[in-house]
Each structure stands twice: as C-alpha cells, then as structure tokens.
C-alpha cells in the first residue's frame, strides 16, 4: 500500500474531524439545558486569600441551586476566571467572559479598583455584574447589582451607637490612603457632628504599609477616646498588634472598624482584637438557625472545619439566589431581562432578609455591630430590627426621599450643590 504524505494528511484530518464531531454535538446539546455564568475573583496573587472565599461561596450557591433543580429547569455552569489580584487582568477576563463566552451575568470583583476596571466593559456591552463587596458608594450603574453594604449601612447605626452607648465623643479617624477609607471618613464626619461628637484627626497610611509605630503613638497622645478605623488589608493586622504592643487597652480607647472582619481577626491572632468593634450586616456570630446551617454548609463545601465566614462572602452567596429569582421572574437569562427584574427581589439570606432596591440596584440589609471576643468570634451587641435602605451618595447629602441615583441614572445636578 502506497502511503504518501497527502493521503496521510487527508486521513488524519478525517480522523480528527470524526473525533471532534461528537464533542461539537455534545457541547451544543449541553448548552440547551445549561446557563453559563462568569465567576471572576482573584484565585492567585495577594488578594487571593480573601477572594478565594468569595469564589467558593459563589460556587457553593450555584451548587445548591443546581442540586435543587437549577434555574428555569437548566443547570448553572460557572465559568471560573482568575483576576490575579490585578485590575488589568480583571478587565481582560471580564471581556473574555462577556464577548467570547457570552455569559449573561458575572459574579465577581472584590476591590473597588477591580470593579472600576471592569465597569466600562459591562456598560459598553450592556452586560451585568453582581458585586458582593461593601464599598464606598459614589457609583450609579445600570449594569451592576451591588449586594455589599454602602457607607450608610455601616455607619448610620455605628456612629450614634459609639457616641450614645459607648459614651465616646472624640474620634480619631484612621485609614489606608485610597478612595474607600476617604469616602467612609467623609460620611463619618457628617454623622459624628450630627450626633454631637467631634473628630480630632483624620490620618492615612499608605496602602499595604505595616509600620504603625508613629501613628499609634499619635493616637495615644491625641486625647481621643475612640478610634474609627477604615484600614484595609494586612495593614489591619499590624495596626491592632502595634496598638496592643504600645499598651493601649481596647476598654479605654476602643477601635471601631468598618473593614476588620473574621478574616483579618484570624490573621492577626484573636487576642489582639479582643474588645474592639466592627460594623457589618453579616457576622459569623449571627445566632440564627439559618446562619448556623450556612456556616456548616460552607465548612463542608470547602472541606475546612475551621473556615470562617464573613460579610462579603455572605453577599457572594446570597446574590446568586437573588440572580436566580430575577431569571425566573424574567423567564429568560439575558442581561436586560435580569436587570429589569432583579429590583424588588428579596431573599432570606444568612444575615436576614435582603432586598435589591429597584431605585438604585443596591441592596437593603440589616446593619449590625459586633464586639470581638478572645476566641476570634464577634458578639452581636447592636442590630437594627429592619433592613436599611442603601444610599450610595449619602456623603453628598442623599436621603431616602431625595435619591441621587435613580432608575433614570445619576442625577448629577444634585452633586453640584
């Protein structure tokens, strides 16, 4: 048998084609009973420690929905992409998910920097992002559903409580030097003055900086009686440690924080945070059967009996259910249909009832305050009895009766007042 190059190539091509064909049919058949969604968090890099937990919570929600029959009779297929702790990579991966994979929704992003980096992609392609992090507000996009707390949901109860219940009136505000801490400080100052307190300093440290000697010394000698901390990342850990090492007691001069969650507490060693306070809608310590079951399921899902749950993670989890309800109400999974139907959706999350407000696509949640104990868990010392309406522009005077961010978009004329 003669076997020349051409016939070899031909037969190889045929064979390859024959092998590939079932795959093509298979994929087409799969697509009919599957809905693909994007899951975009940092699986690698400096932020992966926290973002991995958000990714896991999202996958767990998808897993639970799938085992209960999926959405519209279809299974959800998560396409997990790695943002690599780098906003530019986030942008590329978001484009990949939207343009090539044509997913109707992406669940993802943790930092404001990564959200700002992907925002143009979602707006230009009219796609949809579900964003689970507490953030600084000051944003109004028709292409993002925000399921983390905004400043008024972390501070509207916190500042009055510090002044009235703790009896502390002189605030030292400290933060990392970027947009979130600065916006939080802006809202805090308004609330502090409204409630008859005063702020004596407003200091910032480079992001990721961990040399706190001078700052803690300044706090010590400033005459303040409470510290409001908007410090993020591993700087938090060095801060609390230096605080204790310079001999300041949380009982005399408590740190009241907006970022320090179960994750940071575990990282610094619980004894350093014991006695300090944090305000978030969700804590692992929430004592309800729903939350106990949630923590249990999560630990089983990640196969780590000591895993901690935290606010952004709880949001990562329940936002998938809000999305599912919107898809079911719409009867189809296109970004437009989901956005049109997600407003008003409520869900009984581990932290109680959460509702996506149709007016601004932010989520109403119940603010809580926890005091950290020596075992690394919080004890809820104060909670609203109802969810609080999200006001992303509260630092600029937004109120529930005078919304800046509306269904028609941002009313910029109000910002200029």
């Amino acid at each position: 048998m003669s076997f020349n190059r051409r016939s070899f190539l031909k037969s190889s091509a045929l064979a390859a084609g024959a092998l590939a064909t079932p795959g093509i049919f298979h994929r087409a058949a799969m697509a009919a009973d599957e809905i693909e969604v994007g899951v975009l968090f940092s699986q690698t890099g400096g932020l992966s420690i926290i973002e991995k937990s958000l990714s896991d919570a999202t996958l767990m929600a998808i897993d639970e929905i799938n085992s209960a029959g999926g959405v519209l009779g279809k299974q959800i297929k998560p396409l997990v992409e790695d943002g690599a702790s780098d906003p530019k990579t986030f942008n590329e991966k978001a484009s990949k998910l939207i343009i090539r994979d044509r997913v109707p929704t992406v669940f993802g992003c943790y930092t404001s920097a990564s959200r700002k980096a992907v925002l143009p992609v979602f707006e230009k392609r009219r796609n949809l992002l579900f964003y689970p992090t507490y953030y600084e507000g000051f944003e109004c996009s028709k292409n993002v559903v925000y399921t983390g707390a905004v400043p008024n949901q972390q501070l509207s109860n916190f500042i009055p409580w510090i002044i009235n219940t703790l009896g502390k009136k002189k605030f030292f505000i400290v933060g990392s030097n970027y947009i979130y801490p600065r916006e939080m400080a802006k809202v805090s100052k308004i609330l502090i003055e409204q409630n008859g307190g005063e702020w004596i300093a407003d200091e910032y440290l480079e992001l990721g900086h961990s040399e706190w000697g001078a700052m803690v010394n300044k706090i010590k000698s400033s005459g303040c009686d409470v510290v409001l901390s908007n410090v993020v990342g591993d700087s938090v850990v060095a801060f609390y440690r230096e605080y204790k090492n310079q001999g300041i007691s949380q009982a005399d001069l408590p740190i009241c924080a907006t970022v320090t969650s179960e994750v940071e507490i575990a990282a610094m060693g619980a004894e350093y945070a014991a006695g300090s306070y944090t305000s978030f809608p969700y804590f692992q310590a929430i004592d309800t059967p729903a939350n106990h079951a949630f923590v249990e399921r999560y630990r089983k899902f990640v196969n780590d009996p000591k895993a901690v749950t935290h606010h952004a993670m709880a949001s990562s989890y329940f936002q998938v259910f809000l999305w599912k309800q919107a898809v079911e109400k719409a009867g189809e999974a296109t970004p437009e249909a989901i956005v049109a139907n997600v407003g008003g959706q409520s869900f009984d999350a581990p932290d109680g009832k959460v509702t996506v407000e149709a007016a601004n696509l932010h989520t109403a949640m119940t603010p809580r305050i926890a005091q950290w104990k020596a075992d690394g868990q919080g004890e809820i010392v104060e909670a609203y009895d109802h969810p609080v309406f999200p006001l992303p522009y509260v630092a600029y005077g937004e109120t529930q009766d005078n919304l800046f961010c509306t269904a028609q978009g941002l009313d910029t004329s109000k910002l200029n007042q």
Partner: protein
Amino acid sequence: MVDILFIGLSLGSILLLIALGLSITYGAMGVINMAHGELVMIGAYTAVLAGIYLGANIFVAMPLAFVATALLGWLIEAVVVRRLYGRLLDTLLATWGVAILIQQAVRLELGLTFFGIQIPGLGPGLQNVSVPEILSGTVAIFGEEVNAYRTFIIFVTIVLTVLTWWILYRTPIGTQVRAIIRNPQMAAACGIDVKRVNAMTFAYGSGLAGVAGVMMSGFKTVFPDMGTPMVVDGFLVVVVGGVGSLLGTVAAAGLLGEINGVFASVTNDILARAVVFATVILILILKPAGLFSFKGR
C-alpha cells in the same frame, strides 16, 4: 520627644536587622541577593511552624530560624550563586528567580498539595505568631513608657550587630572576609579559600535574615509575599551606608529610621516615606559611594 526618637530608633533597628545580612553578602561577595526578603519570610514561617508543632515561642524560634535559613542560604550559594561570582547583574536575576521559587514553594506547601497532603501553617493564607506575655505591653525606660516588643527588637539588633562586628574584626575568618572585600584575587593568592569563606559568609548573612524574620513575625502578618518589599528597604540602607561597611550600614539604618519616625510623627506617614527617599537621593548625589565606603576594590 523621647517617644518619637524611640519610634525612629525602632524603625532604624528593623531596617538594620534586614540590612545587616544583605550588607555582608553584598559587601563581601558583590552579590545582590534578591532572595533576601524570602529568607526573612522563611524565618517568619519557622516561627509559625515552631509555634504550631513545638509549641515554641519566639525565643526558641530565633536559633531555629537562624539554622534553617543559614542552611537554605548555604544551599542557594552552592547551587546558584557560586557559579555567578563577578557577574553582578546575573546574580541579581538568578536570586530573583530563587526568590520566586521560594515564595511559590511556601504557597504550594512545598508541592505537597499535589499529593493531597496539607501542612498546617504553610499555604497561601495569612499566619501570625503571638508575642510572649513579657514582651507585650510597655516597659518604662528613662521614665517613658515604651513598647516592650520594640525594645526587644532593638536589643536583639544590638546583639547581632556586635556579634557581626566581633566576627568580622576579631576572628581569623573575619580577617579573611575583610581581605576578600578589599581584593578577592589578592586574597586568593595569599592562600585564602575564597569559595569556602564566601559560602560561610552567605550562610551567615542568610541566618541573620532568618532572625529578622522571627522579629518581623511579632508585629506583622506572615504570608508568602511578605519579603518582597523588605528587599527595597534593605538595599536603601546598604547603598546609603556604603558597600561593605558595617559602620555605614548602622549609621544609614539609624539615620533613615529616625527621619522616618520623626517626620511620621510631626506630619504623616505618607510624607515621611517621601522624605526618606528624598534623603536617600540627596545622599547619593553628594556621596555616590555611600556614607562610609572603602576606596577602590
């Protein structure tokens, strides 16, 4: 005022702790060791693991970390650095590669995750080391309440600096090291085993990095990326102080630490950092070879 100077002093001693090992390897061997920060990180992880498995505190962890990182340093010298002497930029690249390898090895739990084995304490997560009771809180020095742990760091730094000085200037091996700093070829011609001395110097410098890591773990989080920014601070001190000069390294660390501490206290931390770098630039313009440097080599 005493408390501000104390903060500056403690910042300076941390800088010196990092720079000491770096200064020795750079000065004696002309090796820019980019993996120095990772050796600091390994030292910190030694403290974490010693705490988990041996229930040991940082006092026990210090000698352990010295031995562990010295051995690792010796290995790096034998496998990579030894083949690249005299090629400054090549050592920079090669040790940078070593740094990445060490970092990823810790993150991947030394590759064992592939086989489903998990070592608690390693991996990508954040770790911490608790400070013994006697070192937490404050102590009174000259009537001023100061941070006990930082006082301890200053004390350890002084001990290590004196020890290093003693080795360099009062032992035969130190004489050999100094001869190699001045002129490696002539030293070799005089019968000094340059290879052996270099290996020991590198191991000793690495061991100092390990001790620095244990000290760091007391007030910082321990995680695989923690070493990277430290190399910059270390080189800042080495370059400003003058290559191969122990006195210069001590002076530069003290100077930059005090500038940082004083400016951070009277203005803010962000400005202080800028002032430190401005000072470094100014010094290098005025004295390109650093504060205290040898003439020629």
